[in-house]
């Protein structure tokens, strides 16, 4: 009986298991394995070089710049994606009329492919484009949004933020439903201001969700690719080259699989750090067995 029960469970798990092994566990081991080989002399007979790829990466000014760029991008996106959607969710939550209409409009960019959004923004960022029209209207010099190394990463981050706001706002909106109304009523009796009300009740109550949004938005910032590929291809002067783009370039353009795999392992450790923080600190209950 016990044996039969086990078999039934395994059979249910089998189809998903095959795919997870084939497209997750084997590639996972392979990434680590490949990172110890040098493919630059021969793609078919790579040399085993131990940690040489990692050493080359750490010594490479380009890769160091890539890591710096990646974290710069993260710092540009994440605080805004954590705070601003919360602010919007609180505002929308208090509105009675047209609520669904507003939600649909703000959510719209989430469902559109990043490629299309990047194309739309490329057009806004054009030297004589719409954005520079407003910049000139305000009395400033036109900005080289995608050509000036000071602005290129900011311009890419704007696209990532644009696409993320609606998504995180929805997460906050559903979390707001769980804040008990009595708490607000009590503090309103004391004559607290709107601002104080949210500082004292809403934000402490939503802390786990704020933490969750911080983690998800950090990880998706670390994974960003499409907007960079479509708008800048890592340029100008490598100013928007992030780790993911570096891996893509070394694997599929330079065909240096060893170096790309070593880069993947480094990215893996960075993302793992963020994920573990989330799972063990904030989401322990969700994954209880």
């Amino acid at each position, binding site marked *: 009986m016990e044996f039969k*029960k086990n078999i039934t469970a395994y059979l249910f798990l089998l*189809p998903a298991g095959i795919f997870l092994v084939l497209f*997750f566990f*084997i590639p996972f081991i392979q*990434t680590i394995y490949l990172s110890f080989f040098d493919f630059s002399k021969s793609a078919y007979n790579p040399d085993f070089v131990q940690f040489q790829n990692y050493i080359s990466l750490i010594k490479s000014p380009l890769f160091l710049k890539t890591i710096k760029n990646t974290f710069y991008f993260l710092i540009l996106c994440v605080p805004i994606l954590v705070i601003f959607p919360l602010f919007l969710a609180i505002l929308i939550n208090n509105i009675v009329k047209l609520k669904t209409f507003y939600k649909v409009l703000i959510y719209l960019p989430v469902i559109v492919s990043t*490629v299309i959004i990047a194309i739309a923004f490329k057009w806004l960022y054009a030297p004589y484009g719409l954005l520079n029209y407003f910049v000139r209207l305000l009395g400033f010099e036109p900005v080289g949004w995608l050509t000036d190394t000071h602005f290129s990463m900011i311009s890419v981050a704007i696209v990532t933020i644009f696409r993320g706001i609606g998504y995180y706002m*929805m997460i906050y909106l559903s979390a707001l439903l769980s804040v008990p109304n009595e708490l607000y009523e009590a503090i309103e009796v004391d004559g607290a201001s709107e601002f104080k009300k949210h500082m004292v009740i809403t934000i402490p109550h939503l802390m786990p969700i704020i933490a969750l949004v911080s983690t998800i938005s950090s990880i998706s910032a670390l994974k960003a690719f499409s907007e960079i590929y479509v708008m800048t291809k890592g340029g100008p002067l490598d100013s928007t080259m992030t780790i993911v783009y570096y891996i893509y370039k070394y694997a599929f353009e330079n065909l240096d699989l060893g170096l790309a795999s070593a880069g993947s392992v480094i990215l893996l450790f960075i993302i793992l750090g963020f994920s573990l923080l989330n799972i063990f600190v904030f989401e322990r209950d969700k994954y209880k067995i």
Partner: protein
Amino acid sequence: MIKKILKSSLSHLIIIFICILSVVPFLWLLSTALKGRAENIFAYPPVFIPKDITLENFKEVLKLVPILRYILNSLIVAIMAVVLNVVFAGLASYPLARMNFKGKKIIFFAILATIMVPFQTLMVPIYMIVLKLNLIDSYSTFRGYLGLVLPFAVSAFGIFLLRQAFLAIPKEIEESAVVDGCNSLQIFFRILFPMIKPQVAVLAIFTFISSWGDFLWPSIVLTSEKLYTLPVGINNMSSNFGADYRLVASGAIISLVPIIIFFLLLQKYFIKGSQDGAIKG
């Protein structure tokens, strides 16, 4: 009273401003797409409403670029991804929620681990595996589709989402089915699976959207234009017509139509989905 009205209209104003911001990039594309050859798209100050609205650009881009073919490809790939994800996640989540078996904990944590390792760090060996299995469009169209879909056939997100749904069903329902003589498969297909339809809908929609919008993987595996999905095709068009933004804008606008219809029809599930499935990053 006056203060309250003022406050509420201020929130309305801010929200309306944000709503405008979130559609302006698309409206500006639309405006550019509707401008004729004679109209300067770089006019200063910019012209928001075209003087002579024309559909010429749309006709031309449809003639030059097989956008409808891209849409068909994206649709096939997204539907395959939805079916595989729903079936595999449905099957796998059932024992994780409802059965006790040897190795449950290990399997559970192995699936959990996959959430922490994004595709971006595994794409090099996944590409090699897909090559080895000959799942490339140069062999056949069908193999090309498989190569696009199979690496995303199972997601831990889906398994956890449906596991939560199964956990919420009272045990008594299952027990009475056992008394009636149903076996595990019958319990699963006839009783439990129909009960988690709302979460299945959420999984289906989110899988559809992420497959529809995916760019990185198709741009790695696809070799022939015949199998281009929408994001790859539109990006390709954009680099080919770079200078002619009327055409690029028209192509982009056409590609938006199906997904916006999909979204408007199913928007209540999107709202539900963000309540259930915040873990999909």
